[in-house]
């Protein structure tokens, strides 16, 4: 269920997206295989993200990348990509489509999130076009910084709990 959360100077819109989580060395072979399919080179710096209209590609960790499809794709296409990536034995590609996304915008977004996380959101510590994995409302979340807005993602099993926490943080 898609919902919008509104507070003074802050808006949260729930969104549907798909995601493939990639594990691998991040070497030339890794880059080639991915580039062949989505015409994007995986970022090499830790916590760096790149994006265009269709994809968000982020290096989440030493051996882990998230490829998020900003525009919905037919599920068949996801499975095709998964099997293309997995054809190499040194890449593990997993379907991570059961993820819930929230787009958070507005000038008060940092103040609002500081009710839910200890994470340092100041731009000098969390620059634009970087991402972070951290605890928000006591659950593991990914936060992508687009400058004017954040994209926040968490496992869908937490969706109801997380939305209740968002509403609660707005109310109090």
């Amino acid at each position, binding site marked *: 269920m898609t919902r919008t959360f509104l507070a003074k100077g802050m808006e949260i819109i729930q969104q549907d997206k798909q995601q493939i989580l990639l594990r691998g060395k991040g070497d030339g072979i890794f880059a080639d295989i991915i580039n062949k399919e989505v015409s994007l080179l995986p970022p090499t710096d*830790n*916590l760096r993200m790149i994006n265009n209209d269709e994809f968000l590609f982020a290096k*989440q*960790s*030493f051996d*882990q990348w998230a490829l998020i499809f900003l525009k919905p794709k037919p599920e068949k296409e996801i499975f095709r990509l998964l099997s293309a990536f997995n054809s190499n034995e040194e890449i593990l590609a997993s379907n991570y489509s059961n993820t819930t996304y929230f787009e958070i915008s507005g000038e008060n977004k940092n103040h609002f999130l500081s009710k839910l996380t*200890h*994470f*340092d959101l100041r731009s000098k*510590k969390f620059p634009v076009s970087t991402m*972070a*994995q*951290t*605890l928000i409302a006591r659950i*593991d979340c990914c936060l992508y910084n687009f400058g004017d807005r954040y994209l926040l993602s968490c496992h869908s099993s937490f969706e109801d709990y997380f939305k209740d926490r968002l509403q609660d943080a707005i109310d109090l």
Partner: protein
Amino acid sequence: MLLINCPYCGERDQSEFTNGGEAHVARPKDPSQVSDREWSEYVFIRANPKGIYYERWVHTHGCRKWFNAVRNTSTDEILKVYKIGDPPPPIKEFKNTLKSPSGEPDVGSGNFTVKKI
């Protein structure tokens, strides 16, 4: 609440990390060749000193990466973080934080409030 400098993600709150006990305790290459005593020392025995301790941490709620840290157990100061596989930094690097024979530092242990002259 410590602030821990993950070598991959930078400074983060302690709540994102899990402590993994003493570092540089290598698993025997061939466990079948070690005695009961050697094996039990690997499994159960850890140094637990007061003072400089080489220990492992993992950034559980972040990048999942394991790394090593040098911590002064009597003050909780993390003196250095380094990657798994790197050699342990020599203890003399941190000498100035070790004072009395028991490892009690001048300041930071919380065991007294007035400066001993």
